[in-house]
């Protein structure tokens, strides 16, 4: 049965490059449109000015054919369009987009994507340390806990190439928003308290000028039952996740069975940073 299923997947060139669990929850090929991915915003009451500062401006996604000033449109890995996240041209700015669904079984979950990142090609220089980080996080709630696995590839910091995977379990302060007592918010993507994934250094194929893109494979496995990150893979590297833990907090009102997947990109310099997602597949054992 498993061989037959694998043969069916392999017969489809779009799905053949993934290793999904038994149930495909969603498969988003951005040649078909935005597929339910949108800009993240924090919580507010009465006035947008009540947003925590980090949540004010996380930028809408675009459908991009990766057009470059020198060689024109690169297209995506499969077809023409990728989902593009773009920061502002301010060092430390992040662009964050997500898709919101719910889960129906506390079992294994798998996220796979083909992605790449680049700075805006405003200079005729290599610019390989201009993108600070790209990352993925999950925002999940069950009957007892809200838990948020955060993983990022820290490409560079303050101009120094670091090229390593990190995670964040530290809980930023949960702050009251507005006056009703119903709304709270925490800026969990704050740049502090990130920790290294053991042996997490990885040099990705950046290529040799700022306008050349190579696509990378990433896979993250979670176990919704034990609330653990069980696997991180990027291209040929599979990481030992001993001690790699999610952010954990008590369950909150209005978030039952939440299953959000969030991607982001952060710039290290006063230049826009771009994260491109060719396609995203979320699957589960249910």
């Amino acid at each position, binding site marked *: 049965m498993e061989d037959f299923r694998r043969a069916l997947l392999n017969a489809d060139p779009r799905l053949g490059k993934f290793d999904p669990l038994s149930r495909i929850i969603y498969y988003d090929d951005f040649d078909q449109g*935005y597929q339910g991915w949108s800009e993240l915003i924090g919580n507010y009451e009465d006035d947008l000015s009540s947003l925590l500062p980090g949540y004010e*401006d996380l930028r*809408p*996604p675009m*459908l991009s*054919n990766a*057009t470059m*000033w020198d060689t024109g449109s690169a297209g995506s890995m499969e077809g023409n369009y990728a989902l*593009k996240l773009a920061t502002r041209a301010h060092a430390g700015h992040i662009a964050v987009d997500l898709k919101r669904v719910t889960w129906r079984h506390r079992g294994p979950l798998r996220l796979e994507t083909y992605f790449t990142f680049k700075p*805006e090609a405003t200079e005729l220089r290599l610019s390989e340390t201009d993108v600070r980080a790209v990352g993925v996080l999950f925002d999940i709630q069950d009957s007892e806990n809200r838990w948020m696995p955060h993983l990022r590839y820290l490409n560079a910091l303050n101009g120094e190439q670091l090229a390593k995977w990190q995670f964040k379990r530290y809980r930023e302060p949960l702050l009251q928003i507005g006056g009703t007592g119903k709304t709270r918010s925490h800026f969990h993507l704050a740049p502090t308290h990130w920790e290294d994934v053991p042996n997490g250094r990885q040099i990705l194929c950046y290529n040799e000028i700022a306008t050349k893109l190579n696509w990378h494979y990433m896979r993250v496995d979670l176990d919704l039952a034990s609330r653990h990150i069980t696997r991180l893979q990027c291209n040929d590297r599979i990481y030992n996740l001993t001690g790699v833990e999610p952010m954990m907090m008590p369950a909150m009102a209005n978030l039952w069975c939440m299953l959000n997947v969030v991607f982001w990109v952060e710039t290290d310099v006063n230049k826009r940073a771009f994260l491109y997602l060719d396609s995203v597949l979320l699957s589960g054992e249910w």
Partner: protein
Amino acid sequence: MVRQNYTATLERNRVFQGEFATEPYECGWASEAIFFVRKLETTGRTVGAKLRVQISADGIRWSDEETVLRLTSAEVDFARVKHFGNFLRLVGKLPKGASARVIVSLSLKE
């Protein structure tokens, strides 16, 4: 198959004063677009100010497309654009002493 439509919020609660430009938006898949400018709050003389639609081949270098969005006293103003290639943005300049806290939306259709 129905036609794709997508609305991007280019600016939210941003204060325009002096010279300003929205972030580049890549939308070559769309064949028509409408910029909406919703004014949450204004000070000084904003009515009559002209915002210009710009296009770009690379998202870096910009040219006036010649569509103009003129600010009025209404809550929302808009400008329609067609045949714009791949990148769009809106630029403008408010007179000294004037400012507008705005939401700028770009409604795109295949």
